[in-house]
């Protein structure tokens, strides 16, 4: 152990401690969650008493879809393989993982023989675009407005915003988006009712196309930003009110530090840390919410793909979307978690 004053030794020690205490547990947790989630996905169709293959076929017939015998045989073969129903459970389980590692989710039954991967790839940019922008806006706006409202908790505008958040917050994604749709697309016809762009438009890099896509995304995005922002607003306001009561803020006030500096550098910065953890923890919910919102507005992302899969009984596609989402969300959470030390020096040096 180098002497206490040695800066190099200390730094190395803390870097190692950081890897050991922070990085490795996070990584272990990441892989364990994926393992658990995928295992659950594997076992869910096996827990039901009836044969999943027959069950899927029944479901397809019950919905009155016509399949010619050749396609039917292919589907049965694919289903048996996808559910990995050959061999013992353990064999099936390993085969299942093997396919996932190759990024192979099998074939969609209703858009036979399109692969599930292809369908997910087509839908993904829409969801990603919607999710990234809305999460960014709801997080930043919610935190800034919430932080100001917490600092100026006695002002009337702060109270009005608080009441609005109290009304919006408890509404589930479906009801809120549906309400927005009814109000802003049917009652006052400001926005398009559904879709991601005008029907028949081809993808191009023209201004017209971009304008159209943005125009169609306004309502779904607005719903997500308001709902997500309300949660951020409320938690941030509460945290800031608590930080506000801390000694160092009172001291800064007495010491004549300008108000903008106190709010920006002292209060909000300190309050932001739990909000980053909060974001990581709620990403799964935000993602589910985005899927549901897409369904309401028939926005052509993963949510609408999921909806079509449910309507047509395309279990393979649902499974593919679920497995993909588990990977995507846990990875996103890991990334947020790994950036956390950038904001919190205590994690870096402790």
């Amino acid at each position: 152990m180098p002497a206490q004053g040695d800066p190099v030794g200390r730094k190395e020690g803390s870097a190692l401690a950081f890897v050991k205490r922070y990085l490795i547990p996070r990584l272990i947790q990441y892989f364990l969650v994926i393992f658990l989630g995928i295992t659950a996905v594997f076992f869910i169709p096996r827990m039901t008493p009836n044969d999943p293959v027959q069950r899927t076929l029944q479901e397809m017939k019950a919905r009155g879809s016509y399949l010619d015998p050749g396609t039917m045989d292919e589907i049965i073969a694919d289903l048996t393989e996808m559910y990995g129903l050959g061999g013992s459970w353990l064999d099936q389980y390993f085969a299942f993982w093997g396919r996932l590692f190759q990024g192979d989710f099998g074939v969609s039954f209703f858009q036979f023989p399109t692969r599930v991967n292809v369908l997910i790839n087509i839908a993904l940019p829409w969801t990603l675009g919607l999710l990234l922008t809305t999460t960014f806006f709801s997080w930043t706006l919610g935190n800034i407005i919430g932080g100001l409202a917490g600092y100026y908790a006695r002002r009337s505008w702060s109270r009005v915003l608080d009441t609005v958040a109290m009304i919006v917050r408890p509404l589930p994604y479906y009801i809120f988006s549906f309400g927005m749709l009814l109000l802003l697309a049917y009652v006052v016809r400001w926005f398009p009712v559904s879709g991601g762009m005008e029907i028949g438009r081809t993808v191009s890099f023209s201004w017209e196309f971009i304008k159209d896509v943005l125009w169609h995304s306004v309502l779904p995005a607005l719903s997500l930003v308001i709902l997500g922002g309300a949660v951020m607003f409320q938690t941030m306001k509460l945290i800031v009110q608590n930080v506000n009561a801390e000694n160092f803020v009172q001291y800064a006030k007495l010491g004549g530090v300008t108000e903008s500096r106190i709010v920006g550098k002292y209060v909000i910065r300190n309050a932001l840390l739990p909000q980053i953890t909060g974001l990581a923890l709620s990403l799964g919910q935000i993602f589910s919410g985005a899927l549901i919102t897409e369904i309401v507005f028939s926005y052509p992302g993963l949510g609408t793909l999921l909806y079509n899969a449910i309507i047509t009984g395309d279990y393979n596609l649902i499974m593919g979307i679920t497995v993909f989402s588990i990977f995507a969300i846990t990875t996103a959470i890991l990334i947020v978690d790994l950036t956390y030390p950038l904001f919190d020096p205590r994690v870096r040096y402790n």
Partner: protein
Amino acid sequence: MKVFKDLFRDYRFALSFCVLVVLLILAGLSFFSPYDPTLWGAVPRDLSPSAKYWLGTDSNGQDVFWQATFAVRNSLIISLIAGLVSRVIAVIVGMVSGYKGGATDRVLMFLGDSLLVIPLFLIMVMLSMLVRQYMNLLVLGLLLSFFGWAWDARLIRSLILSLRERDFTQTAILSGTGTLRMVLNEYMPFAMPLIFSTLINNMSWAIGLEMTLAILGLVNMSIPTLGTMLNWAISYQAILLMRWWWIGTPVVLSIFLFIALYWMSVSISEYLDPRTRIQRVGA
């Protein structure tokens, strides 16, 4: 009684209490309904509200008002099953985890965190697709309860962690109190308010998820709930046909229900937490 009076001073509690009472009366009225909720064609189709049919009738030939009474009742039943069963799981997990600590704690909390992190909605979709043929109020309630305990178990755990450090725990252990008695007699009273306020939140979550699953057609569509009612209205194009009484009823009722449950839980937990109470009085 004094507690009640104090709570009523908070306008949010007073409002939410009144709304919930009205909704409960509505649910109770379902027992006096002149129609069988599963029967189609009992009344003429697609009538707008009138003195005879207060909220009009729908395209299945059902009276919207009486259908709504069943819907509120069934949604509340599902959420109560989900809420109560998941409370039991949350209390057991939270208390064992907080009291035992060590490896047990880590495993249980890891399981809970995984549930929080994984996109549950998709797992629920997969599950309900497979059990759709057995779906009824109880199955749906239980399904929801298995997934709704994680966050609340965490809250209860941290409460137990702080209680465990207090002196009375040591006193009780030294005077020979067993673990079970300790948890039930000593810790339970402290945990009760928390359990109650999380119960309300959980019920609201369950109703919301039921509605979402119902919109996707993943529940038994012949049992009227707020979700299935909305699904029928949407699939019969009630929006385009301007049958606002049909589409509006489940939407407005559920909005009132969600807001009332939330306001009640917030006002109760603020009342219980003296720190925020002081802040509210001071603000």
